[in-house]
């Protein structure tokens, strides 16, 4: 379906994308994960033909993006991070404009627009100016735009950025629904989002792929370590050694020190529950625990976990 081979993109002296290669199969939901500036958007822009690569090759359904751009683009629906919406148009006028750009035959244009609006639940706002829509609705109109022309591949660049929690949930549900009929590439810097939606995850950092694995496998690797945040009434020097001595504790980091309280970040092996041992270790030195909570693994944890040698 999509084949990316040895993709390189330079911005001046900076190598934004450094020899990326991957394949996306039909019906797959691929999560593109990475911190800001990792090269996700650049890679997506190159796949969609918005940017040209310095070197490398991309084919969509066998069509080379550079050599047969029109045929390749017919198979792609793209929603950039900032949806490309004309605020002075109504939703229907906008979708009609997009369908004309995508050369949808006139006789099926109206039906297709109606179907797409129904699919993304924007039928009730079809006559409203996009300018007057909420962020969530605008994002839906952006997705509707990608579906016009019925492309096989949908590329979504951080579609949940700026949405409130309810809208994020709705958006995820919508993407899951779309995945039944489309191949989707979805970028995000939020791990939980990618885990919730995608079959497979590619992690990109500094323009390079650092991991390419099914989501379940990646989660298992991340779960190799767990993080806890503790707020203690003590000094860091007093607790550092006893905590390090607890079996399974990998590192102890001071995050904050204020008014005689310290906040400590504790990283431990995932296969060993250290919570009781930590409690007793602190009890032995009479250090009260004011707060004790486990932290979800961050993107940084994943990078650390993936790039460091496994035990």
């Amino acid at each position, binding site marked *: 379906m999509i084949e990316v081979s040895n993709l390189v993109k330079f911005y001046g002296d900076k190598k934004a994308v450094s020899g990326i290669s991957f394949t996306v199969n039909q019906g797959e939901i691929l999560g593109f994960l990475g911190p800001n500036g990792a090269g996700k958007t650049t890679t997506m822009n190159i796949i*969609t*033909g918005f940017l040209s690569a*310095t070197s490398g090759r991309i084919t969509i359904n066998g069509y080379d993006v550079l050599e047969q751009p*029109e*045929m390749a683009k017919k198979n792609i629906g*793209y929603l950039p991070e900032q949806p*490309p*919406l004309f605020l002075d148009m109504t939703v229907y006028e906008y979708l009609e404009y997009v369908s004309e*750009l995508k050369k949808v035959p006139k006789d099926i244009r109206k039906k297709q627009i109606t179907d797409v609006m129904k699919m993304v639940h924007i039928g009730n706002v079809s006559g409203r100016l996009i300018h007057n829509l909420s962020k969530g609705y605008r994002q839906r109109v952006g997705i509707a735009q990608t579906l016009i022309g019925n492309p096989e591949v949908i590329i979504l660049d951080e579609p949940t950025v700026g949405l409130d929690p309810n809208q994020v949930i709705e958006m995820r549900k919508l993407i899951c629904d779309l995945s039944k009929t489309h191949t989707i590439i979805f970028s995000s810097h939020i791990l939980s989002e990618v885990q919730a939606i995608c079959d497979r995850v590619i992690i990109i950092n500094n323009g390079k792929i650092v991991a390419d694995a099914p989501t379940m496998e990646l989660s298992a690797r991340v779960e190799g370590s767990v993080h806890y945040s503790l707020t203690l009434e003590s000094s860091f020097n007093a607790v550092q050694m006893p905590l390090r001595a607890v079996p399974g504790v990998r590192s102890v980091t001071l995050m904050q020190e204020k008014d005689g309280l310290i906040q400590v970040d504790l990283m431990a092996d995932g296969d060993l529950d250290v919570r009781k041992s930590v409690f007793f270790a602190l009890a032995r030195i009479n250090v009260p625990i004011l707060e004790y909570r486990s932290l979800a693994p961050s993107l940084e944890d994943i990078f650390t976990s993936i790039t460091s040698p496994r035990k």
Partner: protein
Amino acid sequence: MFAVFKREFLSYFRTPVGWVAICLMSVISGYYFSNMLASSYVNIAMEIAYLRTFFVILIPIITMRLFAEEKKNGTIVLLYTMPFSIKEAVIGKFLAAMALQAIMLISVFSHIIITVVCSGIINSATWGAIFGYLALAALFISIGMLTSAMTENQIMSAVVCFVVILFIIMLSQIADSVSSIIQAILKVTGLYGLKESSIYSAGNAVRNALNWLDPYEKTACYTSGVFKIVPIVFCLSFAAVFMYITYRVLEKKRWSQS
């Protein structure tokens, strides 16, 4: 291409731009026409020739947003990622601006009707002047479109377009000045040891060369009822060149390394 044309043309009337341009044109042409009526001498060709000087204000207004606004709002992504060529977008936007220019002549057409009703004279010079007006408009719109494609700041686009058109309007004066300066330099420095007649000829050659580039001068013949093909070819050729450069500037964005 038709989709871009339709969107762009209608967007002139969704925003104040189209209305303001039409009103401005109506006020200016109405003022000139009423003065002619008051003096009992109506010459529509003269009115159109007068209106041509206002290209310097009107063209930047109607072209500044063509690409600059799309770049700023991020909607230009649509043009790059849709299954069609950027060339079609350039032509579509050009035709939309031309259509607006044609509609802006509605006040002139109303003046033609009034003139006919009052048994005034409408001759080939009138139609020739309209023809020359549109040819000049095509050239200036292509320039405005290029300045709009080069920036995402509409004001910057308008200012650059204004300066370029002003330069073209003043081209004959600039040609005279440059010619005089060259003659003075050759005289004072005695460079190449040229005779006075040769210095004069050199100055004249520069003046003629610059004047050759003056589209106002070229299309002036239409106002006097003389039809020539050269001014049309001149204006449309340059318009095509500027449109091609616009296309290249937009394509360059794809390959940009910044």
